[in-house]
């Protein structure tokens, strides 16, 4: 990859990153932070690439430790975000159920 291509990708990603969260409501700050946190767990892919190419014991141990930590970050991050959001989602349903009961 040329440096120019990398710079282009980098610059465009910054703008997309700014843009996608620009309208977030306060209510969702915590889940959004948690979700973004899970996304940077994608370093797992990098950790696997390094571990896959590692030959010395030192490199291997560092890379395997990285795989372990990155997995915790990624998997734990997505699960905890889902738990937070589960609660938001439960609400309209419960309200609907109540309305349905009231209608009867």
């Amino acid at each position, binding site marked *: 990859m040329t440096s120019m291509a990398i710079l282009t990708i980098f610059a465009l990603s910054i703008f997309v990153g700014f843009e996608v969260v620009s309208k977030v409501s306060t209510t969702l700050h915590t889940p959004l932070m948690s*979700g973004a946190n899970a996304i940077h767990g994608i370093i797992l892919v990098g950790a*696997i690439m390094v571990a896959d190419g590692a030959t010395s014991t030192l490199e291997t141990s560092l890379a395997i430790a990285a795989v372990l930590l990155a997995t915790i970050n990624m998997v734990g991050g997505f699960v905890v975000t889902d738990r937070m959001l589960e609660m938001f989602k439960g609400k309209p349903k419960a309200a609907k159920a109540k309305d349905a009961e009231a209608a009867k």
Partner: protein
Amino acid sequence: MNKNIYELLGLAVALSFILALKGLSAPKTARRGNLIGAAGATLATVVVFFAPLGEGKSHHNTILIIAAIAIGVLVGVPAARKIQMTQMPQLVALFNGVGGGAAALVATAEYLNLGDGASTAEVVATVFTVIVGCTSFSGSVVTFLKLQELMTTRPVVFPGGRFVIAATLAGVLGTGGWTISSGGNTPLLVMGGLALLFGVLFVLPVGGADVPIVISLLNAFTGLTVAASGYVLQSTLLIVAGTLVGASGTILTRKMAEAMGRSLFGTLFGAFTAKPQVATGEAEARSVKSGSPDDVAILLNYAQRVVIVPGFGLAVAQAQHTVRELADMLAAKGIDVAYGIHPVAGRMPGHMNVLLAEANVPYEQLVEMDEVNPTFPQTDVVLVVGANDVVNPAAKTTPGCPIYGMPILDVSEAGNVIFLKRSMRPGFAGIENELLYDAKTTLLFGDAKDSLTKVVNALKAL
């Protein structure tokens, strides 16, 4: 696997992350957004095992890698599933920290792998990743200790602290320069150690109330380290994903800081400007008015409008269901009930909304600060349940106190204020609350859930 297919799949994953962040910004699509992100991340993890290899290279350590992933899942999933909702912020901090640590380890391992063959740009990216990754790791551990209350939640400031921090930062940058100019393993190791120390020093002077901003900031930092490792590893996916998190995390941090009336700059460099706190001990002996659950029930019963201000104490006592029961009873009596939600009620912005949603509190009763503040003069009773800092007038009246300048809920404008508190202990930020001594304030001591249950029973008896 064919190189083009591999890269196309990488692009799909990058797009899934954009969709995930987009989805997470709106309540309706948030959960789906998170699932899209998780699906993308899973796909990327599987696909990387089939990455096309360069000439003469072979796969190593596959079994070890899979074992490490399995252990990671066994640690991460139960932690995320079993954690109490009140302890969620520190878990997010910890997840962020291990992510930063992972990025630093990846960069170090790749640096060893490249050896003398590394280009200057690659070494610079490595140095950046190790510095920021280590800072993020140790900083997150300190925020975890603060939030878990394993250490003091007050700002830790020691004499000459700012010089120590400045010297450490200079040391980090100096060793960074050394690594770039001379290469080798020793400079990188020293630099990593200093960066770990810097992370600790950076977060120590931050007061409890600012911790969420720091978590969000470290989160953005970790994103950038991922992007930098992506550069070293020639992975477009890592560059895109890391930059997305870095950029969106920065915006999010700024929004959080705005919600708390903090300048991002002030929080960032608070470490350098922190002054020892104004002493606030002398008020201890003053008298307060405490009431019984019956008194509180009577006050509520004859009110026309009641605003409930929930805080972290409510979450700790698991009182969200009881508070809803009380609110429903009052509403059934024709009393206008609302919840006044401070943007940082709980330990993170939006934390209280999550907790109340768990108790099925109707969404329309949750009123944000800007909307509820003008209604306090028409409010008869404010019921403050386990909150303190977010209603502390010191934020307006005492320059120099750690929460000065933070917007607060103006509950003192209301007719009566009832505090449900466990003790006279100051709140998370560690500042005395003048409002507790006000003539219109009644205190009801005890566990929030017990107290609320007693008030509910007293109301039933009326």
